[in-house]
Every structure is written in C-alpha cells, then in structure tokens.
C-alpha cells in the first residue's frame, strides 16, 4: 500500500529557530554560531528577539554539515567553501538564464 505523504514543505518556506536549524541540519548549535560569526550563515531580518533562519541558512547549514562530516573541515574552512559554492551557484544560475534565452538552433 502506498503511504500518502501529507506534510510536504518547500525548503523556501522554512522559518526556523536556531534549535530547529541545528536539528534539521545535524549541526551542533555552537558550530552554527561560529558559522554566523564568519558570516557564512545569516539569520533573517533585524536581530531583535529570538533568531530566525530562512531557506538560505538551511541550505548552507545542510551543506556545511556534510562538508564537516565528509572532509573533516574546520569551521573556518567550511565558511570559505560555502562562500565559493554560493558564487558557483550564482554563476550557474546566470549561465542557465543565458542558455534559456539562446535560440535552440544557435546552440
């Protein structure tokens, strides 16, 4: 029998507390705080009251978690890699946008 998955959430719609972000990304909160100190992970909006994290932070935290586990990277190095991956993603998106605008017969 097929089980219907009802609770399906777009990553884009996540708004998380620090504890939730730590839980979902499997990163300990102190590591997340260190990544925030480096500016690699940023909370949303003005820093009043409890910190809230959006989809960009979740994406970064999940990658950071894998990089730490699979490469045994220090937090500072993780921050640098995250910055570069961001840049790669940005360029990739630009490239895709340009390719979409190219007429097919000219590619």
């Amino acid at each position, binding site marked *: 029998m097929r089980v219907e998955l009802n609770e*399906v959430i777009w990553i884009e719609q996540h708004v998380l507390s620090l504890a939730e972000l730590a839980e979902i990304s499997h990163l300990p909160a102190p590591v997340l705080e260190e990544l925030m100190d480096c500016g690699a992970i940023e909370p949303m909006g003005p820093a009043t009251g409890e910190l809230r994290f959006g989809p960009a932070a979740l994406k970064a935290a999940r990658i950071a978690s894998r990089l730490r586990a699979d490469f045994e990277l220090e937090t500072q190095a993780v921050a640098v890699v995250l910055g570069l991956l961001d840049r790669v993603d940005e360029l990739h998106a630009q490239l895709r946008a340009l390719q*979409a605008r190219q007429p097919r017969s000219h590619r």
Partner: protein
Amino acid sequence: MKYKDYYSALGLERGATDDQIKKAYRRLARKYHPDVSKEPDAEAKFKEIAEAYQTLKDPEKRAAYDQLGTHPPGEEFQPPPSWQQQYSGAPFSAEDLNLDLSDLFAHLRGESRRGPRGAMRGRDFEVAVPITIDEAYHGTQVELDLNMPEYDEQGQLRRVPHAFTARVPKGATDGQRLRVPGKGGKGINGGPDGDLYLNISLRPHPLYRASGHDLYLDLPLAPWEAALGTSIEVPSPGGMLRLKVPAGTQAARQLRLPGRGLPKPREGQGDLYAIVQIVLPSVITEPERALYQQLAAASAFDPRAHFASEAGHAR
C-alpha cells in the same frame, strides 16, 4: 547480499595502511563529493567511496570486513553465523536479500564502543524527482519507492520497502527542494526519525526552456511576418495564446507574455518569453524567387551600413 570490494572502491590493495586509506579517501572525496563535484555520477560514486571509507577507517570494522574473505564484487554471499556472533552489533536477517553490506557495517559496534550508545537521529534521505514542465505548471503526484534499513519486531536488521506518494504542489522549478519531516530513516535508540528530501528537477521540454519560473520559447517567423507584423497562436503550458507580432520585429527580440510562465509557490507567476527567429524556407519556388528579386531591386536597405563607418575608424 551482494559483496562489495571496499578496497578497490578506494583504488587500494588489501594490505593498504591506514594512512593510504585516508589519503585515497581524501583524494576521491575531493573529486566526487556531490556538494563540490560536477562529475555526472558524483553522487553514486561518492556513496561508494564513503561507504568503503566508513568501514575501512575503523580498525574493528575493517577486521570484520576482512574476515568476510574475498568474493567477486556483486556476488551473492552470506556472512557465516560465527561472523555474526563475533562482530555484528545488530542481528540481521540472513534471508533478507535486499539487505546491503553497508547496513551490516553501519550497525557494527566498531567505534561506538567508546561508550553507551545514545539516541541517534535517523538518516536523511534525498530522492531525485524529475518532473515535466507541464507537471510543474499544474502540480503533480509522484510515486517514490525507497528501501530503508530498519529493525523489525525481533530486533533484526532488514531492508524495508516503503512506497510513498507525494503531492508536488504547483510552483516547483529546477533545483527546488521539498522536505518531508520524519519520513527518512528511523531514529536509533529512541532518536527522532530523519527527513526525506525531494530534489525537483525539470526534464527538458521540446518547446520551452525554464529559467527560474520564466519560460523561453523559440518563435520562428517568416521574413514577411516579421516585416509586416501578424497575429499568431503560440503554445504555453496553460494553453494556446494569441500573440500580436508588431511590424518590423527583429530577430532575437523577446516578446514577453506576462504571467504565462510557471506559477510560483505562494503567489505570482513567471513570464513566458517568445524569442523571435527569422527563418527561411529551405526550398523556394520560382514565383517566390521572382518576388525576392523584385524586393531586392526595390529596396534601398543596407543592413551593413555600419561596416563602412566602423572599418573607417580602424584604419
């Protein structure tokens, strides 16, 4: 279960030192890690490498693996009962053909001897979900068949098939992810269950190309249509649309059809762009040729007027 050669996965001989194992893993991880690699099959490759390393880097797991002897990769084999008694932290179901070699080692005592086993969060699973542009437009239902390692009532490790259906709401586009909380691997020792992630990608479409929620469509026009203007029908995921092509439309011009692209998750809709191409028939008839000749004679248009002036500057 199928035998896997963890040494050859890392490109090593059986007698490799710990240092060689570490170096081989590092070199291959850098090349194939899915977060940093653009190799086409990086994900599968890295899984093999990581699995081999997880087992070989731990002296106890490595000893247990070596005790299994050597078999040709992919050969069906069963670890003898004595092996299970000596090494396995988790009893497994010997007749379960789906059980993966990695399941055995993941649950082997190994390093975890350091202390009492605490509660562990279940693994996250990621599944690639390719959908068509039409499915992204309307939303769709996908069927997922996953095999997850789990303990049964007898505390035996088994591979349990899970059949899910998930609704992909409209608004999906390439590279977006959906998270299904608690539907990943089962937590261990009372830990919470992992999550399931659906990675959406768009299959190539014969007509449209997607960029975010915008769609691009090639719009071929005959030279006279571009020159005189016309009203034509163009396809869109929502159905045919009438588009007015103004007189004097140049090639490569983008005609924007606002709100006719892919819907966005919460509100709004991307745009559809029709990119003008001026195309010529590959064969022309005699009367057509005569008309072109008449046009050539009548027209004073010089499409290369700028050549003369620009070339003049260069001199």
